[in-house]
């Protein structure tokens, strides 16, 4: 009887001694609040960070620029420590005081990044007032996909889309904003995102030429794969980048991928320190962790996106990526494009 009581007492004190410890630990653990896109911070990635730094990470996911803006602006950015946004969108967060500068020197793994991502001054929108506002994390570029069997020499220019030799065998994307930029690039412009008043006419002419040379325009990646295969398309502008390449290869097409020499339009997502940051060192540790090969490589293997620390197999170091920035007039581009795609001729497209 006495023995049992003593045993129970021992057990109780043992439990009491053990129980509060994890609870206390959990309570004391710092929390990192991350706002990111699907695939940027998968649970296994997060777990690795939590174990290494003895912290807890709260990941909130968004799937559109609108949702991102709503989340961030809801409380002036104070609900998060760090978030991911593309360079074009970043501007309004800086304007709104929701994004804070970051010191690249505090992030050791930046040295792993490819030169084109380290040269922050070459990436429009990353710098403001001499300070860096984002650490490039992932990107996707709009290269050219071509049917290897129809090319002796792979195409290397956007001009191939206009090549009369490929008439009826070209597939382009049905999107006004990007297409105007492409038209400008194909015309040799270095300012594809800012059309001057004199640029509109040649750009529209160029787009009508494109329309007359293509087989058609696609909207969805799956649709592009279907048309590409059925009509033996030779060349396609890959608006969805390598995602389309993967789909086509999965469908059995013998296709190649190339970044045209004029450069490829590309969006670039960066990690940005939110104005709500509580522990800068922890955020810097997170950014450093994101640039580790084991983490960044997952973007390629799982998402078909580009990693900033390793060159994609299809890409060459000299390939130029034209990071998307806000264009001069979205509405006008879309309005004119709607006329172009509808089949109007030049003077009707340009009519007021």
């Amino acid at each position: 009887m006495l023995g049992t009581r003593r045993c129970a007492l021992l057990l109780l004190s043992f439990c009491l001694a053990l129980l509060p410890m994890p609870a206390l630990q959990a309570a004391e653990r710092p929390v990192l609040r991350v706002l990111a896109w699907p695939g940027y911070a998968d649970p296994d990635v997060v777990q690795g960070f939590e174990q290494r730094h003895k912290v807890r990470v709260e990941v909130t996911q968004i799937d559109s620029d609108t949702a991102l803006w709503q989340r961030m602006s809801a409380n002036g950015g104070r609900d998060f420590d760090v978030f991911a946004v593309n360079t074009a969108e970043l501007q309004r967060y800086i304007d709104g005081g929701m994004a804070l500068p970051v010191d690249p020197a505090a992030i050791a793994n930046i040295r792993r990044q490819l030169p084109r991502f380290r040269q922050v001054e070459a990436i429009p929108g990353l710098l403001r007032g001499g300070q860096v506002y984002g650490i490039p994390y992932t990107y996707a570029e709009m290269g050219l996909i071509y049917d290897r069997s129809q090319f002796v020499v792979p195409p290397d220019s956007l001009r191939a889309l206009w090549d009369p030799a490929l008439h009826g065998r070209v597939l382009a994307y049905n999107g006004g904003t990007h297409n105007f930029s492409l038209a400008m690039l194909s015309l040799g412009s270095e300012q594809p995102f800012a059309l001057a008043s004199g640029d509109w006419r040649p750009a529209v002419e160029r787009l009508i030429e494109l329309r007359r040379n293509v087989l058609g325009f696609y909207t969805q990646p799956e649709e592009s794969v279907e048309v590409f295969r059925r009509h033996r398309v030779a060349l396609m502008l890959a608006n969805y980048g390598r995602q389309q390449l993967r789909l086509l290869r999965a469908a059995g097409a013998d296709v190649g991928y190339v970044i045209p020499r004029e450069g490829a339009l590309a969006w670039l997502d960066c990690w940005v320190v939110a104005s709500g940051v509580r522990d800068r060192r922890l955020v810097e540790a997170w950014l450093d962790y994101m640039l580790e090969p084991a983490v960044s490589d997952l973007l390629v293997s799982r998402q078909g996106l580009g990693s900033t620390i390793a060159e994609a197999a299809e890409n060459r170091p000299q390939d130029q990526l034209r990071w998307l920035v806000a264009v001069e007039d979205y509405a006008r581009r879309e309005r004119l494009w709607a006329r172009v795609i509808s089949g109007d001729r030049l003077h009707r497209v340009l009519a007021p």
Partner: protein
Amino acid sequence: MKLPTIRPGLGGRFTLLLALIGVLASGLTGYYAFSTSRSLLVTAAEQRLLTANQVLVRQLLVTLEGVVRDVRMLARHPLLAQALSATGAEARGGAEEGVDALFAGMLETRPEYFQVRLIAAAEHGMERVRIDRDDSGLVRVAGDEMQEKGHFPYVYETLRLPPGRVYISPPAINHEEGAHASLGKPTLQLAVPIRDGRRVLGLVVISVDIGRIFQQLSAELPSNVAFMLTNRHGDFLVHPDPAKAFAFDRGRRVLIQDEFPATAGLVAGEPGELVTVADMPGQGRVVAAFVKHRLPAEHDDRSFILGLSQPLAEVLASSDTVGAATARIVVAFSVLSIFLAILLARAVIRPLNQMLRSVERFSSGEARTPLPVQRRDEIGVLARSVDSLQKQVDGQMAALQEKQRELDHLASHDSLTGLPNRRLFLDRLAQALARSRRTGEPLALLFIDLDHFKEINDRLGHGAGDVVLRTVAERMVAEVREIDTVARLGGDEFIILLDATEDRAVIAKIAGALLTVLADPVAVAGEAVVIGGSIGISGYPRDGSTAIEIIAAADKAMYRAKHEGRNSFRFASGEA
């Protein structure tokens, strides 16, 4: 404190059990009838929807076949080929005017057509003749408004079609600028190439207002039936919630396989049909039927799924009436079964209770109550057994009591004379004394001893003595009042208790009368035997206060009478 466990009697339990069985039986029957009627209603609704669905598919196909016939008829018309192949402006103009009239005629008779166009294979798919529909009527589109359509699938796919085929586009929202009524509307294009020998000159294309067709299809459906249509991927083209129709055009995917998971197999698989009961977002629980159909003779996989749904609550509305009726029947039958259970239990339990009462009264010695012996069933047999048992016990008890009475008599009476014996007498005397002490009433004792009895015994034998004793006893009993007690103390000694007698004269008179009857000769063995008696009289309270004192006083007085000359009586106390 321990409470007694109260258990219902056999009758209660029997009633409860029977009632329970009755209620359970009617309840279960009702429930199964109700649920069966519900599942029958759902099945019937599914079949109804499926049939309606098949009819709608049929109608849709008929409509589509009509368009196919129209577009083929147009394509075969020589004017179209002429218009496309004419080289001279005049010839071309003339032919185009003819085509124009042809198209206008068709649009006038076919309100579901948005536009009919003749498109050239040359000049990047330039429109050559185009009649659009507008809010105000038909619009002949010409000149600058003509557009190049070569990059649209309905042009490049149609131009590549093998002979005999008709191009049918996937249903989509038309975003072509200048399309008049068709702009921004769900549109379906049907096109046929126009050939001149092996050379493809162009095509004729009819844009169909599918919204209108869907509306016509669903117009005849009851308002509670929702009409749905999807493309081959499962994207909704028609949905009760307009925001979910053609959602893919707005960058969203609203798929039938997400709203009705059961349709996933149908979307991925071969044409077929399916019925399901599912939770439809915004509509609640619905019964739905789906039919997947694939258009024939198409190089492309143009299939669609047509669906009809009806809220489950409405389908089951009529089952509520059935349910209410069933509930009433169940309640009625339950009440009836409870009533019957009570009756039945009473019928069985009442004779049992009757017997129980009878046995209870019998065992407590009360008057017997009747038993249900006249019944012809087991209870009757039991009752008759109990009855005969009771009678048997009764008989035995009566014999026993008789014996007891005899024994009691023997114990308190003299066997020879039948008079109370000494024991009984003393008992009665004690009672009389007790009464007298309470009431103050006096009493008297007469002690009688027969004279010469011993001589008779010796001379004539004990038999003669017995006869004398019996005769004397009878005579004495006859002389006294009924309330007075004549007892034989033993031998030839008798004693008489005179209750409530005080008057000496009366007592003397009785004593005298007794002496007279004692002196009468008694006939014994043919001889008249004369005996006599001596009587001693004592009284309470005069001669003593206890029985012994009073008896002793009477005894003494008797001896005095005997010594002073027999056949006389003496009072224990003097004259005074």
